[in-house]
């Protein structure tokens, strides 16, 4: 009787232990995501504070550079979203980035109405998204990298041929198109609002149930389909969001320079987000922003020493990138748990 009682108690204890263990798993999962959200919110607050106070403590040139950093950061986050959600490394994101500026310039020539610019940016994003979405339908991820790059390169090569004649004057070509000039604070404010909104949106989505479903596509498309994820819809959504945000950043870039030329489709624009995120965790928004700012400032410094010197930095980083990516993967495997 006594023995049975002890056995029963042991069974009961074991059962309780099991429940506690499961409870712990769920608890630690919830705790992990709560912590992740808190961290993202803290990062957001720091970034917002810095960006809000930046105009008060910066001179014109520094503010101009910071604005460029903000625009590139948004571009990097948009690019990184596609990479981390559906596992597609796009080297064709210069297409929405450049197209937005080009369409704005065209619209401006015909209508002289800058208020319609956001519309052209969205159109540019949608057009590019349709191309990249079709490419993403293939499960060959390596082919996606190279074909997206190829399409971007073709547009870059042939964009100087694009000219229009109006009132006896030729616009476009190597020189590109002009856009209306803006006070720096207008471009800065618009860029900051966009970056902060994107930062919050991605941060929230990444830590949500929807984000978890999306990441199944990144990890394994076949397995994702087996848990009922509509892979092609996820790809379409993520590509569209990524391209539209890239186009918004590209539109602001054109406004920032009051000018757009074939260089917006260039190889260094295409490679920028890839290089900016090499050293940071893939799912980290603050990593993308930090990387972009560092790259913008260092590139600018190098260019002041010798024109296009930043391309040497890009090349060096590209050469070491496979090693860094392998090191990061090893580190992720070693850190194991949640």
């Amino acid at each position, binding site marked *: 009787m006594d023995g049975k009682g002890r056995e029963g108690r042991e069974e009961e204890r074991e059962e309780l232990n099991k429940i506690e263990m499961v409870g712990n798993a769920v608890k630690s999962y*919830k705790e992990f995501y709560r912590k992740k959200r808190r961290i993202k919110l803290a990062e957001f607050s720091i970034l917002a504070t810095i960006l809000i106070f930046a105009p008060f403590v910066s001179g014109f040139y520094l503010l101009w550079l910071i604005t460029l950093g903000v625009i590139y950061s948004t571009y990097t986050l948009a690019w990184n979203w596609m990479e981390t959600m559906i596992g597609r490394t796009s080297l064709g994101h210069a297409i929405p980035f450049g197209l937005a500026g080009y369409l704005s310039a065209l619209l401006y020539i015909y209508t002289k109405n800058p208020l319609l610019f956001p519309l052209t940016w969205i159109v540019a994003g949608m057009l590019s998204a349709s191309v990249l979405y079709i490419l993403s339908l293939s499960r060959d991820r390596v082919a996606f990298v190279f074909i997206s790059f190829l399409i971007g390169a073709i547009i870059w090569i042939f964009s100087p041929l694009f000219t229009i004649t109006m009132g006896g004057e030729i616009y476009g070509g190597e020189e590109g198109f002009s856009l209306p000039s803006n006070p720096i604070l207008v471009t800065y404010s618009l860029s900051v609002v966009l970056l902060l909104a994107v930062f919050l949106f991605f941060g929230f989505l990444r830590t949500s149930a929807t984000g*978890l*479903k999306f990441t199944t596509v990144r990890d*394994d498309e076949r397995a*994702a*389909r*087996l*848990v009922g994820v509509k892979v092609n819809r996820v790809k379409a959504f993520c590509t569209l969001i990524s391209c539209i945000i890239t186009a918004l950043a590209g539109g602001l870039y054109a406004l920032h320079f009051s000018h757009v030329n074939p260089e917006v489709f260039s190889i260094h624009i295409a490679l920028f987000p890839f290089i900016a995120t090499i050293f940071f965790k893939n799912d980290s928004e603050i990593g993308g922003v930090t990387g972009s700012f560092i790259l913008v400032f260092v590139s600018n410094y190098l260019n002041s020493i010798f024109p296009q010197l930043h391309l040497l930095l890009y090349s060096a980083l590209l050469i070491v990138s496979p090693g860094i990516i392998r090191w990061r993967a090893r580190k992720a*495997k070693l850190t194991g748990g949640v």
Partner: protein
Amino acid sequence: MKLAMSLIGDTTVVGMLKIKGVSKQFNSLTVLKDVSFNLRKGEVVGLCGPNGSGKSTLLKIISGFEKPSCGKIILNERDITKTPVEERVELGLSFAFQMPRPFLKMTVFENLLTGCMLRYEKKEAMLKAEELLELFGLEKLAGRKAMNLSQGELKLLELCRSLSTEPDFILLDEPFAALDRENTKNVRKKLKMMKKMGVGMLITAHKTRILEKLADETYWIELGKIKRIERVEG
């Protein structure tokens, strides 16, 4: 068991998966020839045969990863021959790969959660994932990333995830492949448990012996043709 039943829902509804005259050709190579059989809910059908006999191709066709050259797949009186994989999963058909394909960067718990979210809102899905962890004895691994699991643990996770979508039928492609004796025993135990839960299973294997006392019916497939049907008692 009460817990197990709650995962599967109403087991009294009699479901049926019918494979009708399925053939598959890759160019001039015929992989499957006029394959037909039925699988009832709660029943286990074994499909044995040597390498290259067409077992995996048949499973891929039933799950929707491959298209048949001719023939039909009927799930609960509905023709699903042209239905995409994800819709088949919604209709109650699941698949477990021979080589486990978990979401490597996710934890074990998250792997299960993704499946549970097909039918439930996040809060309820978490409870279901919790039940599954307990059912498969994966509680200790809940917070571990799938990339850090052993082969045996991955196999269990694959099985568990295939159950997370609450299917009527699960297709298991060589669930005992690359497992040691201990893990084979464990997987077998879980398959028996799933059978008791009322899930219909189609299991492929090289030898019929491994499916003894588990399969209600065993088919022998060779050169794409079902050649021998044997009834395994018990």
